[in-house]
């Protein structure tokens, strides 16, 4: 097996928030002890509901937010706490694309300038004609006609803006792209175009992806492995098929059962696991297992101690004290 590109160990991102004028600040544990590995060319999907810490995790890995603790190793090199110059060099290999494609693009810059901007930073010695050639090539690869090189972002649709963002991220031939909800703002028919494009670029470039999304159907399409996050902690981490076919954590099972299926007979006859209540406040998380307040199988012991990640199968980790007792909450169909 190839060496991991990225190794994340016990990563924590905690934010202090003001509680009151004289009160001591409280901590929001946005990411609280997350570990995983990513190999070249692999896609890790990160799913979870709003507030689970998935976007913060992506930014913490890239050092766009300073982690509070833990380690991120990039090709063997520790990058938590690395100096600005070291990080700047690493950024060539690690890129990010965002949910709102138009907001991520400077409205006063032409598409050519936006896509070519990373070249100014990392390959500033390029001649003008060489730079134009590289920009045109990058645009062509994401399905944008190089004839549009002098247009401005507002002249493009949402799907095309996301292609511009991908072209900019790809122009330096990075090894990793963190995709933060890259298709959530797009129409269904356009989502598929972008997912297919990312998969195609990945095949061609052996690119690794961290694909952050709340959409479990999209994540299933693109991921090799999937992490389910809940309140800053890993609930379950496994290969794609294990997550979707044999989920062990009650939260994963509940999430999957809640996704509407675009098939009237199946949707109306499917079984669902009902969760009670809302996500607890991350400022004041429940004791023991953070999921227990909504968990359909919570037991007294779940309030007493936090579950550790246990091995539930090859490459399959689950964080639940009861996963072996209640292996599947839905009756076999």
């Amino acid at each position, binding site marked *: 097996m190839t060496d991991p590109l990225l190794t994340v160990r016990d990563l924590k991102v905690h934010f202090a928030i003001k509680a009151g004028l004289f009160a001591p600040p409280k901590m929001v544990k946005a990411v609280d002890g997350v570990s995983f590995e990513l190999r070249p060319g692999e896609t890790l999907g990160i799913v979870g*509901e*709003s507030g689970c810490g998935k976007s913060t995790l992506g930014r913490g890995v890239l050092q766009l937010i300073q982690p509070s603790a833990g380690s991120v190793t990039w090709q063997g090199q520790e990058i938590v706490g690395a100096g600005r110059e070291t990080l700047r060099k690493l950024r060539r290999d690690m890129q990010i694309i965002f949910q709102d494609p138009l907001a991520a693009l400077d409205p006063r810059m032409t598409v050519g300038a936006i896509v070519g901007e990373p070249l100014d930073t990392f390959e500033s010695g390029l001649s003008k004609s060489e730079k134009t050639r590289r920009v045109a090539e990058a645009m062509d690869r994401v399905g944008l006609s190089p004839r549009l090189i002098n247009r401005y972002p507002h002249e493009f*649709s*949402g*799907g*095309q803006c996301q292609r511009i963002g991908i072209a900019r991220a790809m122009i330096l031939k990075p090894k990793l792209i963190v995709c933060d909800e890259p298709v959530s703002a797009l*129409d*269904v*028919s*356009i*989502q*598929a*175009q972008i*997912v*297919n494009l990312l*998969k*195609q670029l990945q095949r061609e470039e052996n690119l690794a992806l961290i694909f952050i999304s*709340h*959409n*479990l*159907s*999209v994540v*299933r*399409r693109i991921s090799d492995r999937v992490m389910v996050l809940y309140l800053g902690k890993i609930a379950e981490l496994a290969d794609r098929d294990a997550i*979707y076919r044999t989920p062990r954590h009650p939260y994963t099972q*509940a*999430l*999957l059962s*809640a*996704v*509407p*299926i*675009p*098939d*009237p*007979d*199946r*949707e*109306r006859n499917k079984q*669902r696991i*009902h*969760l009670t*209540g*809302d*996500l607890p406040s991350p400022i004041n998380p429940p004791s023991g297992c953070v999921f227990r307040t909504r968990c359909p199988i919570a037991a007294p012991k779940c309030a007493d101690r936090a579950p550790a990640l246990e091995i539930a199968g090859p490459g399959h980790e689950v964080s639940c004290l009861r996963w072996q007792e209640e292996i599947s909450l839905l009756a076999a169909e």
Partner: protein
Amino acid sequence: MAPESDTATTLLSVRQLETQFTTPDGIVSAVNGVSFEVNRAETIGIVGESGSGKSQVLMSIMGLLPQNGKATGSVRFDGQEILGLRRDRLNKIRGTRISMIFQDPMTALNPYMTVGHQLSEVLTSHRQISPADARDEAKRLLDQVHIPEPEKRLEQYPHELSGGMRQRVMIAMGMLAKPDLLIADEPTTALDVTIQAEILDLLTELQHATGTAIIMVTHDLGVVAGLCDRVLVMYGGRIVESGPVRDIFYDPQHPYTKGLLQSMPRLDDDLIGDLPTVAGQPPNLANLPPYCAFAERCPYVMPACREGVPPLRPISSDRAKACILDQLP
């Protein structure tokens, strides 16, 4: 073409609705001749992508278009024409017989008023009821939409509630007069999937109790599959296909409907090959072609498709499509 509406079963009848906006860039035609009916206690889904005109159909029905918008045609509610009705007359219907819920509850709730105050206000403005009774009734309503600790919630402001709870409060407000028609514009789009499922259950439960008809506008075909009796598919401000929900999902007859269904990733597909896509981009409503708006993206396009706008024509007793192809290949 349409038989005279039978008000025993037909609650809402929309005929040749056209909605236009005057903008600095010219006239934008958001709705271009939309006709449909809603029966009592029925759930209609309107699906389409951004710019399909689906939300503007709702706003036109509700008389909520902004200053620069104008709707023409006919909207008959329970036999009465309501398009262009004076505001005071419309207000007798809105909130009591027709309610609306929105994607973002914060736009519908007053941030300066407690939940209890807002609910009581709606009750006292539509009914002769004492403030104390209104408060009891408000508490009962919160209980009915399964909000825990209703007594405590009455004293809270909207920002103190979670997104899912705010949506429940809005539904409570929308349903408190037991309206004949509830218009829901993407009511679960901003919510997490587990919360969405609970809200959809709640709507179904309330509908069974009250017999309210629902028009549900959404881009999520999964939501439509679970909730709706009939479906209207919109594209470029027109209905391109309509029919019972099972027919639309299992035997789509318009190329756009078929493309939309195929391009949606789903938890139960086989993951073989790439997702099929609908090529190209959605149409520009400020500059619609004088022919089928889907022609530029259609895999089955023929020269005749560019000779005029295809009318929505019946293809069986309860189905219609706006496509000149008789059968999809």
